[in-house]
């Protein structure tokens, strides 16, 4: 294996001046370091976005509560949404893709290391710019700094007439710039997967994580472009006298909605597909069985990729598109449930007949399965256009997409953290703290988001800074807030686990989970340039073949 001189570890760096270490990290083009930078950056924003959520929940604990003003509340939900989507979910998933894809396809780095670094710093700059608005701009009439137009920034609320000052510009440019970063990373992921695979790794032998990230990369390329176009058009409206979305001058508010959601809906799949990828790696290892129906899993993912590009207007059932358009988007939205269902069944098939080990990573995977099932079913309700006329824009929708993003994406991400942390740091995360984290978060999640559906059914719209007493929403909102605090505590346990285990965790060794993909072949953390000699593979599970020479997978594929 690689010599010690080749390995790069921050622990070894102690003793060197910190400026040198900082310089090394800032100028790095190493995929592993950039992966860690992406993930750390996302975790910082996760805490910021989480604090925003806590303040929102305090304000909504009681009707007519005055914890924050409406102006501040509107900024909080705008910043919370924008932060969580663009500066937490996207970068953390890109971070894992960056770290894992080259290792899993047997490559020494990403295809374009410099583009990789450039993309990261663009995204990082976007996040910085968004928060610089706190000192840099003023928002809606009478409101102070930071964007307050909602994370969809619907026209014409963003027109200069309604949003003077620069807060909307900070939002626009921050999202635009980080979007360019996302496009760069997507190109890199696609090129790495298509061109850098090790000998023997045909497309049909790629780990599912690589397949799913390939689909994700393709979707990013297709959908970030209309978003970028819309942001540029908005800037033209605001500064160059354009009238694309300026309804006072004959522009169209609906066209912004189309532009935004043709990005916005596939975005959900851009976020969830890498999480499907984590599931497809972790569930088999802890069930001690190969993934059930590999070709169908690939097919279903590609199918989701395509179909999800034609469902966006189900976010717009209430804007009066007419019965034919509503019917079309209702059926496409329902159809996307079919390949998604296939995935759930295939994970079930993977566990069926296996020997399931309930490590923390697997607990989060199981939580994901149940919660994603429910999120999918409430999704079917929302796809049924007439039902959506009642549910849309209400707290039911807020509960639904948090079920997807927290119950699905975040649970899968936690699974990924517990599973790959040993590879990234060389130390195991504490299982007991991990289980505490899981159960606390699980309880808090269900207290918050199960109950949150009900105020929506009782007529509570989203994005209101306060509500009237006596409409049946009071008790529910109080309990929802309590659940949010429980989740907050669970996140603190998680962060504590990350920090404590980094210093005190048990040594991981190369392959703590007895897993089957190439990243477990190398040391933990992996040496610089990953592989001293590029491996050759003969099946989807090269390490299984190594460990079971008498019964290798390559015999059956």
């Amino acid at each position: 294996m690689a010599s010690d001189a080749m390995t790069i570890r921050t622990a070894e760096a102690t003793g060197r001046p910190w400026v040198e270490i900082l310089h090394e990290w800032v100028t790095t083009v190493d995929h592993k370091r950039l992966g860690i930078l992406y993930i750390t950056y996302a975790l910082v924003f996760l805490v910021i976005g989480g604090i925003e959520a806590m303040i929102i929940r305090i304000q909504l604990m009681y009707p007519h509560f005055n914890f924050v003003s409406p102006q501040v509340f509107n900024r909080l939900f705008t910043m919370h949404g924008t932060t969580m989507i663009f500066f937490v979910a996207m970068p953390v998933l890109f971070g894992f893709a960056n770290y894992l894809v080259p290792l899993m396809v047997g490559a020494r780095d990403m295809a374009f290391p410099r583009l990789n670094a450039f993309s990261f710093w663009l995204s990082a700059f976007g996040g910085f710019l968004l928060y610089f608005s706190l000192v840099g701009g003023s928002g809606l009439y009478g409101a102070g700094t930071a964007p307050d137009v909602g994370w969809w920034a619907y026209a014409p609320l963003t027109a200069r007439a309604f949003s003077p000052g620069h807060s909307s510009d900070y939002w626009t440019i921050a999202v635009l710039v980080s979007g360019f970063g996302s496009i760069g990373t997507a190109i890199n992921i696609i090129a790495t997967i298509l061109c850098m695979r090790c000998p023997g790794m045909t497309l049909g032998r790629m780990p599912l994580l690589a397949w799913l990230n390939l689909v994700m990369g393709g979707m990013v390329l297709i959908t970030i472009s209309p978003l970028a176009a819309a942001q540029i058009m908005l800037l033209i409206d605001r500064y160059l006298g354009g009238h694309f979305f300026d309804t006072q001058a004959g522009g169209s508010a609906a066209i912004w909605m189309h532009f935004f959601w043709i990005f916005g809906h596939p975005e959900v799949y851009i976020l969830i597909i890498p999480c499907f990828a984590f599931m497809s790696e972790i569930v088999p290892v802890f069930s001690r069985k190969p993934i059930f129906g590999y070709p169908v899993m690939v097919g279903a993912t590609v199918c989701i990729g395509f179909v999800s590009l034609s469902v966006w207007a189900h976010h717009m059932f209430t804007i009066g598109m007419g019965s034919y358009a509503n019917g079309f988007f209702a059926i496409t939205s329902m159809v996307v449930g079919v390949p998604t269902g296939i995935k759930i069944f295939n994970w079930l098939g993977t566990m069926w007949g296996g020997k399931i080990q309930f490590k923390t990573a697997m607990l989060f995977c199981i939580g994901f399965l149940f919660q994603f099932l429910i999120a999918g079913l409430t999704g079917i309700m929302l796809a049924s256009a007439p039902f959506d006329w009642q549910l849309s824009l209400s707290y039911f929708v807020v509960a639904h997409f948090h079920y997807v993003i927290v119950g699905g994406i975040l649970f899968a991400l936690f699974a990924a953290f517990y599973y790959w942390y040993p590879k990234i740091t060389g130390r195991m995360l504490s299982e007991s703290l991990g289980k505490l984290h899981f159960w606390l978060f699980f309880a808090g999640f269900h207290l918050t988001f199960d109950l949150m559906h009900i105020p929506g059914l009782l007529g509570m719209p989203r994005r209101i800074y306060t509500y009237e007493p006596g409409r049946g929403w009071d008790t529910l909102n109080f309990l929802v807030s309590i659940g949010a605090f429980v989740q907050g505590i669970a996140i603190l346990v998680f962060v504590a686990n990350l920090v404590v285990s980094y210093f005190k965790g048990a040594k991981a060794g190369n392959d703590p989970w007895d897993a089957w993909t190439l990243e477990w072949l190398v040391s933990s953390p992996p040496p610089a340039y990953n592989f001293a000699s590029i491996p050759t593979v003969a099946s989807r599970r090269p390490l299984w073949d190594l460990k079971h020479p008498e019964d290798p997978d390559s015999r059956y594929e």
Partner: protein
Amino acid sequence: MSQPTAFGAESVRVHSSFIRMTKARYNSRSKVFLGRAVGALTLLTGVLLAAALCTASEPQASSVPSIFDSRSTPADSIRHFSFFVLSITGVIFLVVFTLLTYAIVKFRDKSGDRGREPAQVYGSTQIELAWTVIPILIVAVLFAATARVIHAIEDAPKPSTALEVTVIGHQFWWEFRYPALAIVTANELHIPVSDPDHPTPTFLKLLSSDTDHSFWIPQLAGKTDLIPNRVNGTWLDPHETGLFLGQCAQYCGTQHAKMLLRVSVDGPEAFEAWVKAQKQPPVQDEKETAGRRVFETTACVNCHAVGGTNANGRFGPDLTHLMSRETIASGAAENNREKLRLWIQDPDAIKPGSLMPAMKLSDNDLDALVRYLETLR
């Protein structure tokens, strides 16, 4: 509100028992998962029960604007349709939930035979085909039902007896115009009850003067957005009289939360009487000339209109029959002397961020102005 408290409390109970269960059995691996499964199941049953409770509410118009407590044809169709969708998704949930729970309990790693890997199964074409085809059939059924309800609501013909009202969304209040009756009012929509034998539905034309808004009275119909530079429509045919509550559902700016909406469904006589009162020429009480002078000589007239005076502003609500309304500030406060006074003096005290400016009047002028406004019946 006994009803929401009841199901709120039930949810707490479900949760605490769930947490207890998981704690007590933490030591035994298999039981943790049984406990977890049972806990999750109880939890979900609790949620479903709670949802069911909302459907079984008492007949008179309640102040809980539940979508399951429908009182008008579009809302009824959606409610029936939602039960259909809920039962299909409920069955799917039960089947998959059972399978997942079974797999977790049955196939857990039993200590003792470590080291031996289970049978390596790579897939099964028949099974995978089955769980592809069955969902496709379910989607077909769901879509057929969806298309039927979309058509029934969105393409409903307008009968000649229908009342037409134009709704104009403003930051942060509602303007209602009855073109055939020459009535302009704000925030409190009055419509006639619709007898199924002689239907008198109300057809709303939805416009916006500034940003997007959304018209939503959960008990009467699903929501429809009001979008500037675009004409939308919806309709209501309430079968019962009463007051129905709702509010703007599309984020429209700082005070989106207090853009409340009240719909009063009146019996035929009551509606006639209301129309008659609204059509009366405005009475100018001679005793309140001082207050009228304040009104006509300050910025009030730039935004508000009062019939028979030089005030014809259209930026704020029409005040000709102000005192016929129960609330001010789009439902944010009761319409009484004290609140009127506060609203004129310091709107931010009632609705921070609303576009009504603080008028900064002297106490004398303010009192006179409020007395004058109270004559606008």
